[in-house]
């Protein structure tokens, strides 16, 4: 049986790109309808994608009660939530975008903008530096490059959740995180070529 992925659609995302990549990684893939309930029954993995504004995305989440549905989904330890790019940032407590915006608070910490003196957004390919090996992230990934495009980055309260760091100018930011069954990736696995697809496939196997 193929594992089932549901993708939350915040209407501001490159939604088809993620959908195509999940299919390529051999998942049974569905873009979640706003009316859908009981994600636990239908999906093994939920992807919270995102590009765009933090506040706008959070409003879309509240409008559709995604926050409540996600919590209910996560109550089953075998289920996995993956936040990609802005989706990772939404997992945190708050962001300093447009003053201060509250997030899902599933991982304690804040989201901060890169220094104005360097080139922002950080758009392009960069390496991961794995600081903690897991089922999904291993040292082997240190040799590979992934695609990033973001102006903000996450600062978790607890360093123990950090899976990988990435350097951009003088800044070493958290590029992947895992807390229990919640995973965040600052890069775009769906846009990182063959290595990105391979990484997604690991979630199909484990």
């Amino acid at each position: 049986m193929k594992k089932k992925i549901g993708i939350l659609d915040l209407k501001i995302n490159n939604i088809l790109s993620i959908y195509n990549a999940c299919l390529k990684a051999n998942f049974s893939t569905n873009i979640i309808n706003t009316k859908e309930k009981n994600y636990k029954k239908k999906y093994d993995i939920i992807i919270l994608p995102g590009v765009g504004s933090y506040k706008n995305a959070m409003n879309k989440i509240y409008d559709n009660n995604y926050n409540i549905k996600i919590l209910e989904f996560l109550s089953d330890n075998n289920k996995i939530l993956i936040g990609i790019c802005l989706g990772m940032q939404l997992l945190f407590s708050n962001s300093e975008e447009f003053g201060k915006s509250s997030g899902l608070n599933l991982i304690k910490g804040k989201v901060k903008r890169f220094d104005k003196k360097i080139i922002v957004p950080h758009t392009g390919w960069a390496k991961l530096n794995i600081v903690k090996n897991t089922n999904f992230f291993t040292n082997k990934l240190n040799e590979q490059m992934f695609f990033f495009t973001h102006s903000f980055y996450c600062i978790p309260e607890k360093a123990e959740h950090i899976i990988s760091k990435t350097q951009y100018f003088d800044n070493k930011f958290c590029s992947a995180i895992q807390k229990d069954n919640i995973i965040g990736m600052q890069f775009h696995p769906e846009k990182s070529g063959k290595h990105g697809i391979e990484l997604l496939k690991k979630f199909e196997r484990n």
Partner: protein
Amino acid sequence: MNNKFIRIIPKLDIKNGLLIKSINLDGLRVLGDPYDFAKLYYDMGADEIFYSDVVASLYGTINLSKYINRISKSLFIPLTVSGGIKTLNQIEEFLKNGADKISINTEAINNISLIKKASRVFGSSTIVSNIQSIKIENKYFITKENGREIIKENPVKWAKKLEDNGVGEIFLTSINKEGLKKGFDLNILKKVSNSVKIPVIAHGGAGSHEQIYQVIKNTNISGVAISGFFHYAVCNSFKTKKFKLGNTYFIDNLTKEKSKNVILDLKKYLLNRNIRIRK
């Protein structure tokens, strides 16, 4: 420390769903099916694809979603789409159909508030602006509708204005150099890339590895967009399809042979000269 990795971005110019190549953004020649080229460049290790519908700002964007939807299925690298985009709804539609970034020129000049709104809603990193710079008697101007109309605005000033309004990337075409394969306009690229704090992509003039190396070394750009230099080197590997539209004399007279990996060759050349680039 500047540790950004330079991106190599094949640029596909599309008219009526076919890949074409122009000189100075004018004089179009049909080269083939953009789907074939996009997939080949992805397999060869391209870092990104820039897809530009060259007549969409004149005639509308009716079929654009269909074309990018088809192309995006085989691309697992970022796809930037440009051509006649005027509204937030269109942006949402293109993102839904496989675009990752949206590039806007004409409508940015007509209505800068679109850029401001779009970057707020979709994020700066999704909104690119292409500047089509033209040099006339040693003065630089910007143009709209793919070079058809000249605007009295300096590209450096315009780039800053775009940055202030939230654009996340500048895609700078030098019309005088475009399609000639005689090298980039280093002067304007240097000025623009030094005056903004967002990534700048250089386009127009790539004709040799050395010229590409020079533009990376001598300016502060984050990527290089290449069209003809790549397209002409690979197009004979697709000589199986027949097209009825446009000027197909060139492709009709190609001899079929397997093309070499043009992207890998370029990347090797740059790596040997200590340019940071994705292998």
